[in-house]
């Protein structure tokens, strides 16, 4: 088993995983499984280790693959488990209860209240604007 092809596969996997996640962010199944890119980094790291331990021939591509995949695995795990985690905060929303009414301006500045939509099912979405 030659080291260089394994190292190349490791590098390709490590780079392709986050690129694919970002490109397919609009596909709910992809977006909702960020752990998949972390798993891909782990596989890339395993391939790089395999290339170093078992591979023949040049070693430097395997060392590069090892460095890249280790950095991405550490960074990806930190992002997914620490940065992206939203703390559980107490909310007043309860299934079976009516949430407090509010009035907010719409895009044209006209006041809109939640109560004015009674009579219609409402999907109420709180989001960040940029994401």
């Amino acid at each position, binding site marked *: 088993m030659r080291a260089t092809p394994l190292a190349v596969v490791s590098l390709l996997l490590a780079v392709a995983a986050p690129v694919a996640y970002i490109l397919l962010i609009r596909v709910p199944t992809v977006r909702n499984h960020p752990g998949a890119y972390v798993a891909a980094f782990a596989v890339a790291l395993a391939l790089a280790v395999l290339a170093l331990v078992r591979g023949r021939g040049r070693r430097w591509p395997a060392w590069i693959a090892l460095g890249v995949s280790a950095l991405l695995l550490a960074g990806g795990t930190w992002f997914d488990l620490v940065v992206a985690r939203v703390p559980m905060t107490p909310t007043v*929303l309860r299934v079976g209860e009516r949430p407090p009414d509010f009035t907010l301006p719409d895009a044209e500045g006209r006041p809109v209240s939640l109560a004015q939509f009674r009579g219609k099912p409402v999907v109420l*979405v709180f*989001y960040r604007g940029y994401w």
Partner: protein
Amino acid sequence: MAELQGLGAELSEAEKAGVQVVAVSPDPNERSHTMAKELHLGYRFLADRDLAVCRRYGLIHPRGGPNGEDVPRPATVVLDREGIVRWMSLSTNFQVRPDPGDVLRAVRALGA
């Protein structure tokens, strides 16, 4: 808004006409409007600039923004015709939003 993708495609025209989407964000930007138009959903974008409503609802991710500012905790809530909460999903990871299929089922369960 990502959670709404797929919802528009799966609802019938009559269902779209019967469902009101109310989207609350500190920054209801142009991109959201474009997306909602593409979905052909009845929608209203409301600006909660100082996060007063998010705070009152307990939907704040403290210092979760790109510059360390407070941002909304992503949440999707389905209310019935009487304004009672029938289904909700609160994000525990900001990358993860409810599956549009789950929102769709919750809406259809109301007979929309």
